[in-house]
């Protein structure tokens, strides 16, 4: 019997066509479940599964800083001329996070010239990381057209970062996504620490202490996506930073929330006390400055 070499390919095309013919609605039928999907070892699950991590947007700390009527401080930013020094994907991703936070900070303070220069740094790194689809010409055009409306600019920037995050996750480049988030987080804590050193503020001190859980998520995400040990040094530094954050005491007291069903909104009424003293703040400040310096230099 002669074996037809095209047989497996024809079989695959037929099966593939059948699979494609089931669109999103088809999968809604609970009886229609692929065995492969239900198999926990299936590579389908490997692609989409895994732990989920959440790092609060660094823009939120920039909003807090602005609300305290603190003046814009350009010395906080990573020099945009450094952008050409970042040649590895590791450095590019971390510094994209850092420049993204710088961009958000300068945007909120309506520093138009600085904002455009930092947009250039962000654009260069996104291009080198293959994220042009998120930061495309339409984004750049909208960003420039809205340069008198900082709220719109922040929204456009956050949406672009979200699209980049989505692209990286779907392209199985979660390690890169993790580094961008980490860079953004480090820069926002650096801002808070430096500004608090210059002009101590209970609101900023509290915001620094509130990062305790986010730091745990940062360490988890770096460990989870530690490609060939590339994050080892950073993980060690972040664990050392955690030793200082562990001294921050958070006291939570539950109170029942109330819900406005009509307007789809729930208000939380708990209390959360945060105890953080000058010694802890200084430790955190010194450690974060060293971590950031290793990233930007």
């Amino acid at each position, binding site marked *: 019997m002669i074996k037809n070499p095209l*047989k497996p390919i024809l079989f695959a095309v037929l099966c*593939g066509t059948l699979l494609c013919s089931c669109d999103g609605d088809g*999968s*809604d039928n609970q009886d229609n479940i692929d065995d492969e999907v239900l198999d926990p070892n299936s590579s389908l699950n490997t692609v989409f599964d895994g732990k989920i991590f959440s790092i609060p947007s660094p823009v939120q700390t920039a909003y807090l800083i602005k*609300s305290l009527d603190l003046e814009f401080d350009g010395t906080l930013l990573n020099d945009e001329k450094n952008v050409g020094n970042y040649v590895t994907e590791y450095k590019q991703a971390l510094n994209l996070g850092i420049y993204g936070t710088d961009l958000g900070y300068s945007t909120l303070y309506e520093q138009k010239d600085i904002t455009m220069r930092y947009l250039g740094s962000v654009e260069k790194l996104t291009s080198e990381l293959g994220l042009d689809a998120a930061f495309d010409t339409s984004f750049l055009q909208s960003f420039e057209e809205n340069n008198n409306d900082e709220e719109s600019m922040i929204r456009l920037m956050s949406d672009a*970062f979200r699209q980049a995050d989505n692209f990286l996750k779907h392209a199985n480049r979660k390690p890169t996504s993790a580094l961008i988030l980490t860079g953004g987080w480090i820069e926002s804590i650096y801002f808070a620490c430096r500004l608090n050193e210059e002009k101590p503020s209970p609101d900023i001190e*509290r915001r620094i202490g509130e990062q305790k859980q986010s730091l745990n*998520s940062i360490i988890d995400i770096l460990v989870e996506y530690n490609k060939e040990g590339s994050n080892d040094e950073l993980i060690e530094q972040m664990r050392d930073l955690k030793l200082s954050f562990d001294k921050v005491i958070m006291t*939570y007291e539950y109170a029942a929330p109330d819900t406005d069903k009509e307007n789809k909104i729930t208000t*939380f009424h708990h209390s959360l006390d945060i105890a953080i003293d000058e010694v802890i703040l200084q430790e955190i400040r010194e450690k974060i400055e060293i971590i950031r310096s290793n990233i930007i230099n």
Partner: protein
Amino acid sequence: MKSLLVPAFFLLTVGVGHAQQDCERIVQNCERQLSESTDGSEFISDGQVYTAFLDREKAEFKTTFFGGTTYRISASAGEKDNYVIFTIKDPQGNILFSNKNYRNAPYWDFRVIETLPVTIETELDTDLKVTGCAVMLIGFQR
């Protein structure tokens, strides 16, 4: 045996690609929900897309809601808007909110007066859908 490897690989590639396309459509549903507004106010994305391929298990993650902020959680797992159940728990494990009590509402807003570390659990309502891609977005406004 070798002859089976080609179709298996092809199937896997097509299957994964197809599931990714589904996920992409679901992300767009979530984006629409995040920008829905009756008073013109808009939410700013936290810059992340939370995606999980769920069957009968829950996906869980921790985040921090900062005080003085209103957050919106938007979730979707397909064309209909009530497939996903999301639950928010406080540091003591108390349930602060579950959209299950509101017909699996696809989005909900949270006014946060004081900062709160939370755990967010996501699952499919298995009476409606047993398996598939679930997406969540988080937005905020001051």
